[in-house]
C-alpha cells in the first residue's frame, strides 16, 4: 500500500459532483483530508491562506462561475513557489471536448485530463503516475 496522501482539493461548483467524488475518494481510503471549494477564487484564497492544509492533488473543473478553471490556472502560475509546492493538478471536464484537451495539454501545470465522473481507475492511474515511490 502506498503512503496515504495528506490532502486532496476539489474545485468544482457542482455540489453533486463534489459529493460524489468525495465519496469515491473516501471509499478508496487514499487520503486523510478532502477539501472542497466552489470556484477558482475560493481555491486561490484557500491556497494563499497561511493556515491551510496544503494539498498534494487538485481536481479542477473547467466551467465555474466567478473564476473558471483556465483563469484559475493563470492566477496559479503567479503564486509563490511555496504555495504551489508539490501540487499535482488534474483537470476534470464534462464533455471531453477535444479542444479543451488540446488546450490542457499545452499547460505544464496540468498533469491529467479526465472526463467526469472520476472513477476508481482514474484515481489509481493518477496515483501510479505521480505518487508511486
Amino acid at each position: 500500500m502506498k503512503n496515504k496522501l495528506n490532502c486532496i482539493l476539489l474545485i468544482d461548483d457542482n455540489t453533486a459532483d463534489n459529493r460524489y467524488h468525495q465519496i469515491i475518494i473516501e471509499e478508496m481510503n487514499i487520503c486523510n483530508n478532502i477539501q472542497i471549494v466552489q470556484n477558482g477564487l475560493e481555491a486561490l484564497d484557500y491556497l494563499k491562506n497561511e493556515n491551510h492544509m496544503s494539498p498534494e492533488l487538485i481536481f479542477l473543473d473547467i466551467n465555474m462561475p466567478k473564476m473558471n478553471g483556465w483563469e484559475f490556472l493563470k492566477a496559479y502560475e503567479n503564486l509563490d513557489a511555496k504555495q504551489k509546492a508539490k501540487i499535482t493538478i488534474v483537470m476534470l471536464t464534462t464533455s471531453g471536448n477535444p479542444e479543451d484537451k488540446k488546450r490542457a495539454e499545452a499547460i505544464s501545470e496540468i498533469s491529467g485530463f479526465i472526463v467526469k465522473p472520476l472513477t476508481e481507475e482514474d484515481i489509481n492511474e493518477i496515483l501510479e503516475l505521480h505518487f508511486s515511490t
Partner: protein
Amino acid sequence: MEQIIDFFSNLFGTESWPPRWHCGMWTDFHGWLYICSDLAVWAAYFVIPVFLIKLIKQRPGIPFPSAFWLFAAFILFCGLTHLMDAIIFWWPAYRLSALIRFCTAGISWATIIALFKIFPQVLTLKTSLEFDAEIAERKKVEETLRTSEQKLMGLLESAPDAVVIADKHGKIIIINNQTEKLFGWTKDELIGKEVELLIPQRFQKHHPEHRNNFLKDPKVRGMGVGLALFGKKKNGEEFPVEISLSPMQTSDGLIVSSAIRDITDRKKIEKKLEDYTIELENKNKEIEQFAFLASHDLQEPLRTISNYANLFEKQYKNKLDNNADEYLSYITDGTHRMQSLINDLLEYSRIGRDNSIIEMNCNTILEEVIKDLSSSIKNSDTDIKSEQLPIINGYSDLKSLFQNLISNAIKFRKKNTQPIIHITVKSKDKEWLFAIKDNGIGIDNIYQDKLFKIFQRLHTKEEYPGTGIGLAQCKKIVELHGGKIWIESEPEKGSIFYFTISKNITL
C-alpha cells in the same frame, strides 16, 4: 534608194503606164463590170467603218474599242484599194495604188496582231445568252435574299429577346418590336443612333472600348459573362439584362447582333432563392448548434443521475425489497443508454466543428485505427488487407470514418467464418473512391437506404449493441469531404461500403 526617191517624188505620176482601158483587150461589159463592182465594194467598205465608229461612240461600254478603230481603218483602206483599182482605168497612178496597198497591208497586219493579243480576252467575254442566264440567276438570288430577309425579320420579330443589330461603328441598323417594347423607343428614334443610348450613363464611357475589343475577335458569346449588366429605358429606368452577341459578315462589313433579355424577374427569383438558401443554412447551423449544446448541457445533469444511481445500487442493492432492486436496475440501464445516445449525438454534432483541413496519410490513419481496434481484431481473428492508400487533404474526423466502417465490419461478422476486410482505393478525376469490403452477414436491399440515417438500428440491442449512429457519422464525415457513401450488399455474402472523398475540399 534612187528608185524609192523616184517612187515618192513621182507618186502621182502616170506617164509610165497607159490607163487600164488601153492595156489588154477590155470589152465594155468586162471593163464596166470590173469598175462598178470595185466602186460598189469601195462604197460598202466606206459605210461599214462609219457604223463601227458610230457604234463605239454611242455605246461607250463596248469592250476593246481600239480593236474597233483598227477594224474601221482596215476596212476603209481595203475600200480605198478597190476605189484605186477603178480609177486606174482612166488615171494610171500605179505608184499611189502601190502605196495604198502597202498601207492596207500594214493596217491588216496590225489588226491581226491586235486580234492575237485580245483574242484570249475576247473568248472570256460573256455572250448575251450568258448574260441573260446570269441576270436570271441574279434575280433568283435577289428573290431568295428578299425572302431570307423577310424570314430574318420574321425571326427577329418572333424572338423572345430584344434584338439590336449595329454596324462596326456601333450605329443601330435594325431593331425588332421587342426592342421597342423593352426600351420604350420607336424604331425611327433608334435607327442610326449609337447603341450606347441603351446603356446606363455610368457604363457608356467604356462601352466603345468593349465594342472594339469584341470586333478584334468577333465570335458568338455572352456579353460580360459573370458581370451584372443593365439596360436603360427611354424614361431612364434601369433594368438587369443578359446579352448575347453574334457577329455577322456582310457586304457592308462586320455587323453585330445583340440579343437582349430582361432578367428582372429571374434576378428577383434568384435573390429569393439565395435568401432561402441562406436562411436554410442558418437554420441548419442553428439545429446543429442546438444538438451540440443540448447534448453538451444534458450531460451534466444526466451524469449526476447516473453517478448517484450507481452509488445507490452499490450501497443499497439487496438491502431493499425485490421491486426496489428491479426499478433501480431500470433506472441505471436507462441512464446508461441515454448517456451513450447523448455522447454519440455530441460526437455527431462535433463533426466538422474543428474546421481545419490538414494533410493526412490514409495509411497512417488505418494503422492507428487497427491499433485502436486491436483487441476486437484479435478476439475475432479478423484479417484486414489494404492497398497502398493515398495522402489526402481532409478533416481529422476522417479517422472516425475508417474506424466506424472497420468496427462495423468486425461487429457484423458471420459466425464460424474468419472475418476478412479488404480496403481498396481508386483515383478518379476529381475524387478518391474507397471501398471497404467484408464477408459478414450483409444486409437486405430494403434496409439499405435507412442505413445511414441517425439512430436507425436494424438489430435489437441484445443481438448487436450500439446506438445506431455510426453510419450517420460516416455519412456526415463523407459529405463534409464533398463525397458520397453507399453500400452494395447481399445477405449472408457480405457488404462493400463505398465512399468518395473530393480531391479539392473547400471549407
